């Protein structure tokens, strides 16, 4: 394994004594990788980004950039650029001056600046906008100028702090595709922060799920979605039914008062576990053919499917079920789950 682009080694951060907002973060990011830090607000994802950018100092631990510690480097000496949450475009400069800011500081000759800014404007599809005031631009355009202003400096890593948060849904989806395209074109590492799971799953090579200052799981979007390692991840990424259960033996788990076939081994007998079932993985059958019998409480039309809350007759627990078949409230149905769609994780 070669050197990592960015390597966080046990980074911890406390703003006040013994109030840890980041707790022992280990994260290695490769060259040209698109990594997303995903988590609810207050989980420490932005703080992690700010530590890498140099705007906060880690209380403990070290930050390596291409194998060298950058812990004590000020932001202006790091080969890293940031796209800020609210863009932070300089209001007293026009589009050209904003993009050229970093190059001017580095005293790049005038012709070089002209050319580079022009290239950037065509990359972000804003040719001819040089003289425009930043406040006359739409949110999406400002967003792209902010990206250009960072990328023109040819950083090795681009940090993006919820860059699409202020855009409306339609524009956000377009920008997701755009961003991914730009990343592939310039071929540098993107470290992206968001609380939007869909955004994370769409764009990333790897997703880092964070909660309360810790990393819950690191993995490819598919793995994070299909094989959540903790109940938090299962709940945060997509929707899920979470039950407490017990392993009976290999490939057999007991929950909701019933035994279910599964594909998980290497647990101790009667080990306490969490069982996660995605709502779309629940199969509805006839009243008696299922493993569990339940009564439909509510049915909501969601567009591509119906969402139904089904109360188990066994122990009154509710299941959330997504299905294209509509079942009317009051109806009693059977529930089964395919063994490979039952996810088991350790409890306690």
């Amino acid at each position, binding site marked *: 394994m070669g050197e990592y682009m960015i390597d966080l080694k046990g980074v911890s951060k406390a703003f006040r004594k013994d109030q840890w907002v980041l707790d022992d973060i280990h994260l290695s990011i490769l060259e040209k990788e698109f990594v997303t830090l995903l988590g609810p607000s207050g989980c420490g994802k932005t703080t992690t980004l700010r530590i890498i*950018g*140099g*705007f906060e100092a880690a209380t403990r631990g070290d930050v390596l950039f291409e194998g060298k510690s950058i812990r004590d480097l*000020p*932001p*202006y000496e790091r080969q*890293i*650029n*940031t796209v*800020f*949450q*609210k863009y*932070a*475009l*300089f*209001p*007293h400069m026009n589009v050209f001056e904003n993009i050229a*800011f*970093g190059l001017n*500081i*580095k005293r790049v000759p005038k012709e070089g600046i002209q050319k580079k800014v022009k290239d950037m404007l065509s990359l972000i599809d804003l040719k001819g906008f040089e003289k425009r*005031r930043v*406040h006359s631009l739409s949110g999406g355009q400002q967003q792209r100028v902010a990206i250009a*202003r*960072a990328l023109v*400096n040819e950083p090795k890593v681009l940090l993006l702090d919820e860059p699409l948060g202020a855009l409306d849904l339609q524009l956000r989806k377009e920008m997701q595709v755009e961003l991914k395209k730009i990343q592939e074109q310039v071929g540098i590492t993107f470290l992206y922060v968001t609380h939007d799971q869909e955004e994370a799953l769409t764009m990333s090579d790897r997703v880092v799920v964070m909660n309360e200052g810790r990393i819950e799981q690191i993995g490819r979007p598919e793995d994070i979605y299909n094989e959540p390692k903790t109940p938090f991840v299962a709940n945060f990424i997509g929707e899920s039914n979470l039950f407490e259960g017990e392993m009976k033996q290999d490939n057999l788990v007991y929950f909701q008062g019933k035994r279910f076939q599964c594909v998980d081994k290497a647990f101790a007998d009667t080990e306490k576990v969490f069982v996660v079932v995605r709502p779309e993985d629940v199969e509805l059958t006839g009243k008696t053919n299922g493993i569990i019998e339940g009564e439909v409480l509510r049915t909501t039309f969601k567009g591509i499917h119906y969402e139904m809350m089904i109360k188990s007759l066994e122990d009154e627990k509710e299941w959330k079920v997504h299905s294209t078949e509509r079942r009317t409230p009051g109806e009693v149905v059977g529930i089964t789950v395919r063994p490979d769609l039952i996810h088991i994780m350790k409890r306690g």
Partner: protein
Amino acid sequence: MKSRMAYPYIVWLSMFIVLPLLLILYYGLTAVDGSFTLDNFQRFIDPIYLRVLWRSVELALLSTAICLVLGYPMAMIIAKTEIKRRNLMVLLFILPMWMNFLLRTYAWMTLLGRNGVINNILGWAGLPELNLLYNASAVVLGMVYNFLPFMVLPIYTVLSKMDQSYIEAAKDLGANNRKVFWKVIFPLSLPGVISGVTMVFMPAVSTFVIPRLLGGGQLMLIGNLVEQQFSYVGDWNFGSAISIVMMLFILISMALMTRFDKEQQGGVGLW
């Protein structure tokens, strides 16, 4: 409904602002017998009076410049202090303003006078006595002392409201602290600077108390000239004419300043 609420203010405005202005205009444009004339203005275009105007502008500009150089760093320091101590600093800063303006200026007379505190200390230390009072420097000192808060407060307001992410963005793009200041912080604080400059320059150019007390009548400024016409000479017509000239002068300089301000959009100003 809304417009009816404005009536008291309209009455107030017309009684205490519009009417006096019209009166000044009337006096300025008439002779003692009430006939229309431009003689009052013609009289002002005399080297003696123009020199007075020029000296007033000169001293006011100097005081404004000193206030800016002293006030900007001060405003930055206050803006950078953590919130709790910041209010205390602002309070300390405006505390002297709670005292009467005249008293504060008299206080400087006791400090600077021939038998004042500073000369007493110098004499006690065996050093020669200094002529500190009744000269242009004393007047400038008085102006700076009295008007400095007007410079600090608007700049402080702009600086404390400035979005920190601009500063972070500049650092992120490779600017060290000096460059961050000159390329981002200072240009974005210009509305505050312009407010400050106007708020110091205007009273400084028209003051008559400070040159009277600290200049000791040695230094005739335009404010003194106006006061003299009204209080001692009794020539209201000429006094009004000088006032009009001064108002026009301030109006023009303010218009120039705001124009400059508009070119530099963004930030928060007081005007």
